């Protein structure tokens, strides 16, 4: 498998013999190389949950954010190379502010998604640059309706009911867990959604391999600005989620 792209994988501008862009595909692998991040589109909003892997006990908690507010009704959760993703967050904030300034209304989520998608795609076109090594989950509410998008390093943007990214080997397990709740999402409320997303992240955390983790949870709704929950709130959510997971076993 390692030798598959040999020779054709050194530049983003080279197509392989069967028409693949290996550099972009490798960027996709980098995008999965971080803690799990999960987002669910519930009845009137979006919930995000992220697994922050704390590699050392010397690290101060509540740093290393993975969920960012773009404006009151839009947020982004990131996976992969976090510095790359922070550049996208800055770009998203600029786009949103520019749109508001130019058109006088809040940017619709899918329009922001298109702009970020084009921005990420541009970095796959030039030999002098490399693709972004991160995937983003863009969620927000437009005209009262929640929308969630997954944007990959190639710039591919797809709308989702729910999605999980990160943790290479358990990404499929995470997506399977999201699939088990996907049918109940259209009628789920924010509170329930927060617990469900926390459960998905907590149940897949590998204590032996990844040691200490910190859970980061946030939500936004038609009537609620985006907010990342405080440490006390997160602890409550963690306890409730763990309680339910233990009961299920």
């Amino acid at each position: 498998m390692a030798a598959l792209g040999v020779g054709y994988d050194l530049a983003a501008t080279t197509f392989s013999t069967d028409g693949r862009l290996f550099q972009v595909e490798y960027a996709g692998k980098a995008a999965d190389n971080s803690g799990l991040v999960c987002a669910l589109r519930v009845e009137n909003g979006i919930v995000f949950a992220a697994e922050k892997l704390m590699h050392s006990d010397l690290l101060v908690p509540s740093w290393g954010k993975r969920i960012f507010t773009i404006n009151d009704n839009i947020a982004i959760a990131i996976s992969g190379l976090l510095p790359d993703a922070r550049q996208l967050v800055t770009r998203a904030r600029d786009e949103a502010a520019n749109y508001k300034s130019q058109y006088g209304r809040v940017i619709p989520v899918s329009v922001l998604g298109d702009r970020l998608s084009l921005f990420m795609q541009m970095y796959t076109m030039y030999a002098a640059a490399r693709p972004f090594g991160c995937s983003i989950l863009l969620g927000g509410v437009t005209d009262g309706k929640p929308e969630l998008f997954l944007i990959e390093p190639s710039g591919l943007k797809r709308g989702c009911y729910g999605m999980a990214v990160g943790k290479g080997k358990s990404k499929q397990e995470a997506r399977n867990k999201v699939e088990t709740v996907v049918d109940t999402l259209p009628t789920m409320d924010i509170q329930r959604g927060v617990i469900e997303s926390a459960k998905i992240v907590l149940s897949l955390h590998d204590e032996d391999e990844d040691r200490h983790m910190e859970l980061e949870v946030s939500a936004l709704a038609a009537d609620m600005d985006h907010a990342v929950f405080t440490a006390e709130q997160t602890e409550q959510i963690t306890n409730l989620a763990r309680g339910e997971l233990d009961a299920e076993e």
Partner: protein
Amino acid sequence: MSRSSGFDRQITIFSPEGRLYQIEYVFKAIRNVGASTVAIRGDDCVVIAVHKKVSDKLFDPSSITCFHRISEHVALAAVGMSADSLSIAADARSESAEFMYNYGYEMPVDLVAQRMADKAATKTQQTWMRPHGCAGLFFGIDIERGPALYRTDPAGTSVGYKACALGNKETELTAFLEKSLGEDATEPADLSLNGALKLAVAAMRDAIGNEVVVGDLEVMVVSGENAVPRMVGMEEMEGM
């Protein structure tokens, strides 16, 4: 084969036989990744059908589309890598808007296609940028010439078609179209809007299999004089 000796690694290098392998690889990308698409130019309409199969339960199918509006009367069906498709759609919109600003009338379909093809051609002559991994079908009703269907590919060619197929089942679909609409066709085809829609569905069934239902297809048409391209709903395609 010169493949192993490095003639296929960069855009600007010809192989000893005079081939540009990178361009050929881009076409492979379109065939491997692109959804099966069939386009038919009728008597007073253009019909484009895309076989859309979203197998992953987590994705919202309504957010995934191959169609992009370029200007009021011109649309694009882009087949191949999705992100690249979005990029050429945005570029085509920009070109179209600039033309309108400069000349005061809407950029005709064939000119949009030609302009995008010319831009694509520049990417085959420089190493700093790669070609887009998608082919585009520009369509609309031209006010002087009637229904227009133009295919633009990463090699920089722009050609008008009576009917054309792209993507996964390109070969099978093209064979069906030539049989039905070519010179050797046994009977003249019905190319009214309804007839063209039926033909598109029949082509899909012939190439992909009889289990294809109208619900698996995303269809956009433009018909009548001065008409705006529109998506076709399931009710209109009932019974096909």
